[in-house]
């Protein structure tokens, strides 16, 4: 057995010089400290993304885009295709867990100031991927063409249309016309399975390459400790195997969720029906949706909804560019403002999401 393995390895090594890569990975170390747990969320996010790709491809074998067939094809997948129910439920659950783990990963990087020099590009690519993940969620939500998805997309694209100057053209571009119709479904399908995955893969490649090249970021406090106190573990195989252990647990969690809480399909979208009561977006958009509800119709001379969108847009931009304006952290100095601002944002998101869920 060992001979077969060695022969295979050697065969590949002769051609692509695997030794260099193994040597590089063998020398790569991951810091071990009380915050090490957060390092795993990047890996879990990657695993969930892989799950999404695999289950997404399997769903593509049966899914039929289009107003007349989308709902029925998902119904077919759920009831007739062998393990179709499992694949679809895992795809839906994994999508939500992916956003959640990506969010945890993002905040852990933020609070650990891991975005500081020289990892600015890693942060920016990660943030772009996070925005793309939200795009995946928004576009994928419509694909079953059910009532909730239809109206959530209507509300979501309506909000996009409020943005001054560019809002209306963006809304029409997203919808493929004035209203949410079958044309919107075709467009969202295209974004979900071709455009977004293509762009995402490029940024994921850069992100992973940079993580491997630069290694894991060490906490700011590491600088104060002596070389002896700094504990580490080899990335390969220790960290990777631990990562895989966590992946197994996540896989089991997905299976449990899919079996006990299969993702519902609901009623087919009816373009002429009135919106059912209590239409809400997916949980990760809920805090923004709830905020827009609380803003008065008019604030001074600006429309309340426009103001809300502009504030969120500006907030997102500042968040994206944090490595470039937080100079203190880059210099290795403590920046309490970043921590307080981050805590405030986390608190705000959690509270508004809960309120949005309950109300």
């Amino acid at each position: 057995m060992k001979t077969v393995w060695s022969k295979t390895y050697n065969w590949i090594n002769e051609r692509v010089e695997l030794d260099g890569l193994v040597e590089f990975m063998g020398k790569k170390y991951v810091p071990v400290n009380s915050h090490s747990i957060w390092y795993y969320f990047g890996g879990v996010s990657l695993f969930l993304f892989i799950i999404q790709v695999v289950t997404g491809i399997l769903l593509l074998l049966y899914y039929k885009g289009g107003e007349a067939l989308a709902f029925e094809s998902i119904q077919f997948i759920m009831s007739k295709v062998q393990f179709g129910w499992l694949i679809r439920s895992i795809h839906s659950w994994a999508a939500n867990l992916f956003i959640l783990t990506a969010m945890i990963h993002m905040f852990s990087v933020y609070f650990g100031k891991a975005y500081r020099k020289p990892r600015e590009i890693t942060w920016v690519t990660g943030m772009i991927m996070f925005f793309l993940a939200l795009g995946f969620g928004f576009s994928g939500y419509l694909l079953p063409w059910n009532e909730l998805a239809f109206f959530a997309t209507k509300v979501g694209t309506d909000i996009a249309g409020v943005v001054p100057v560019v809002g209306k053209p963006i809304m029409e571009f997203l919808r493929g016309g004035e209203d949410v119709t079958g044309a919107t479904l075709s467009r969202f399908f295209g974004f979900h399975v071709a455009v977004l995955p293509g762009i995402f893969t490029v940024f994921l490649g850069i992100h992973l390459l940079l993580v491997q090249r630069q290694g894991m970021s060490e906490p700011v406090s590491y600088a104060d400790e002596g070389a002896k106190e700094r504990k580490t573990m080899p990335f390969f195989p220790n960290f990777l195997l631990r990562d895989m252990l966590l992946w197994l647990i996540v896989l089991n969690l997905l299976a449990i969720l899919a079996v006990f809480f299969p993702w519902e399909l609901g009623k087919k979208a009816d373009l002429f029906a009135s919106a059912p009561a209590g239409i809400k977006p997916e949980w990760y958009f809920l805090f923004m949706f709830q905020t827009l509800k609380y803003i008065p119709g008019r604030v001074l001379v600006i429309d309340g909804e426009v103001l809300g969108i502009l504030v969120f847009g500006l907030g997102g931009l500042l968040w994206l560019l944090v490595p470039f304006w937080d100079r203190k952290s880059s210099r290795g100095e403590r920046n309490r403002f970043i921590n307080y601002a981050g805590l405030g944002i986390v608190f705000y998101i959690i509270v508004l999401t809960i309120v949005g869920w309950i109300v």
Partner: protein
Amino acid sequence: MKRLSRMMMLFGLLGCVSVTALRAQDKCLSCHEATIGGQAVALFKRDIHHAKGISCAGCHGGDSKTEEMDQAMNAKAGYIGVPKGDEISKACASCHANAEKMKSFGSNLPTNQFQNLQESVHGKLSTSGKERIVQCTTCHNSHGIVSVHNASSPVFALNIVKTCTKCHADASFMRMYNPSLPVDQLDKYRTSVHGIRNAKGDVKVAECASCHGSHDIRNAKDTKSNVYATNVPSTCARCHSNSDYMKEYRIPTDQFDKFSNSVHGVALLKKHDLGAPACNSCHGNHAATPPGISSVSKVCGTCHALNADLFSTSPHKKAFDDRKLPECETCHSNHEIIIATDKLIGVTSEAVCSRCHGEAQNSKGYAAAKAMRSLIDSLENSEKKATELVNEAEQKGMEISEAKYKLRDAHQARLESRTMVHAFNEGRFRDVASKGVAVSATVSEEATKALDEYVFRRLGLGIATLAITILAISLYIFIRRIERRQSRGTQ
């Protein structure tokens, strides 16, 4: 007591004396009688207002006590001449809407007629746009007004139909206000029991005002109208449920109570389903039974068309005709029609078939009824079982919408079978019932599969969890072994 009656007589005498005196003072009448004469004067002398001592000036204004024409017919004295348009009704209302004045004339008439008229369909503006469609004089005439109980009154029970049809039978006039309203009500009315008796001089039977009201007539689509669909039964019941009033006609007076408890009555009166029949749906509005229908029992077929068609080709048709039995009514009753359940068919004590079909006599019908009941019971049971299985699978989160959709076919077959009963043909009934049983069986099979799949999923999850747990523990042990080896290496 004697003293009281004497006093009353005295007051009556004084009243007569004062009315006679007032009449003697009406110079308008005496002057017009002496100079112009004419119909108005002749009619007014018979008018109830004249009898009550009201002079011409009561409506036309002016001073009725002077013989001087310039003074009597002077605008300064309030003379208005012949009232036009809405002024007519206003002139009437000046007394008839005033309770005090009416009391002073010893009248106990209601004083809300004018208000009712204004709110009624007749109180709408006429095509001229200047006045309301109907004034008091349109129905009551102007001079020669007499009590509604007086046979010469145009609104007397035997005359009112003609009064109403002066306009309502005039197609060119009615076209101006409601082109869709028929103008043949009088002709139809004369074919009804009410119309026939009315023509013979029966003042108690219903005429136009009995159902539509007098001053407060509203459009039949107005929910406040006496003839609005949900109000029709109580309008009819005003007479037909009054046993004293109906005594001489010797017909039952419990129709309203029975109807209220019937499937039709509950739908109409409790659920406010305007599609449900009211009294007039079967008995006709103005005519006796809807036009083109020979008997009330045939009316059911106007709504229950399929049932009626099947019955007319069934063996029961001839049997019922021979025995002069009404068709639907024989099994379903008339006013108190209850929801037709499956229990109506069969040979049990609740079933209507057994009333005629005994085991010994009419044994063929008995066997057919028994078989049909058995089939309808199987159909019900199979549908019930399928529904329960589908609900269970759905409640367990299984995707079962296709089977649920098919369940509609099973239910449809059950409804069809209930209709097919009216063919009284076991073979045809069996075809429909078997179709439903087959659909229910397919649905049950699919639902059972979904429930098996539910168990399989949990079992599969258990096995997968076990496998993943073993793998995870092995991996953990492997990591620990590596790390132990690494720490030994560094030492």
